């Protein structure tokens, strides 16, 4: 059985962990040698999903957030999972500018950014059981030099 190249990170949903989470996924994605633009797309999308878990899924308590990423060929898949309150109406949640928490100055653009910056976004959510966001990004193959560029990640 071949083992895929993956990482799985578990962190408590403190807002200061938003930057830690996206930096970790970025360090993992670095082995694909993405362009600066691809890298910033991934970081931004991960930041949106993790922020949603922190502020929407768990609201006032600190819950656990799981971030999984795996690589197949030139494709990276990132999953952000929470065990929070879930999303009642996923279609409405994904509409641009829809936010349930305007008082937190959320813009309602989180899902729109994930969908624009990644190639695929899937949302699974059960009321009271939590939410899983699965995002896929294909990395362009120009400029590939095997393993060489990975060292530059850290």
């Amino acid at each position, binding site marked *: 059985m071949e083992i895929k190249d993956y990482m799985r990170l578990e962190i408590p949903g403190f*807002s*200061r962990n*938003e*930057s830690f989470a*996206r930096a970790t996924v970025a360090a993992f994605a670095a082995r694909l040698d993405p362009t*600066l*633009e691809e890298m*910033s*797309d991934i*970081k*931004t999308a991960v*930041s*949106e999903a993790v*922020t949603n878990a*922190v*502020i929407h899924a768990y609201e006032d308590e600190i819950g656990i957030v799981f971030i999984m990423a795996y690589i197949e060929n030139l494709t990276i898949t990132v999953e952000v999972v929470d065990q929070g309150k879930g999303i009642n109406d996923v279609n409405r949640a994904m509409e*641009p*500018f829809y936010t349930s928490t305007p008082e*937190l*100055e*959320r*813009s309602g*653009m*989180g899902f*729109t*950014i994930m969908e*624009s910056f990644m190639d695929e976004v899937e949302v699974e959510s059960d009321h009271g059981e939590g939410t899983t966001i699965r995002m896929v990004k294909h990395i362009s193959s120009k400029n590939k030099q095997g393993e060489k560029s990975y060292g530059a990640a850290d």
Partner: protein
Amino acid sequence: MEFTLLPMQGNLVVRIFGELDQHYAEEVRKAVDKEWKREIYHNLIFSLENLEFMDSSGIGLFMGRYKTVSEKGGRVAICGPPPSIKRVIELSGLLKLMDIYRDEEEALNKLVLN
């Protein structure tokens, strides 16, 4: 993330450095609102030349300030965002509400003319 508040020609310039996300947007919001309440500024300028990362929390921050500032007849401008941050801003439709400039100098000049 770090930021500085600078009075410039009667406007309030907010320079933000590093990474702006939900954790830090809150900090900036509080400081800007407090300073704005002094009611001595015409316009508000977010200077993003040294910002390295921003997610939609930045959009929320700018939109929220737009409300407070435009109530008093002031304007909000954004200047110098790097390409990746510019894409987030463009996507958000923010440019219907505020203008984007190359740098602080251009922002200050244009805001005065308008």
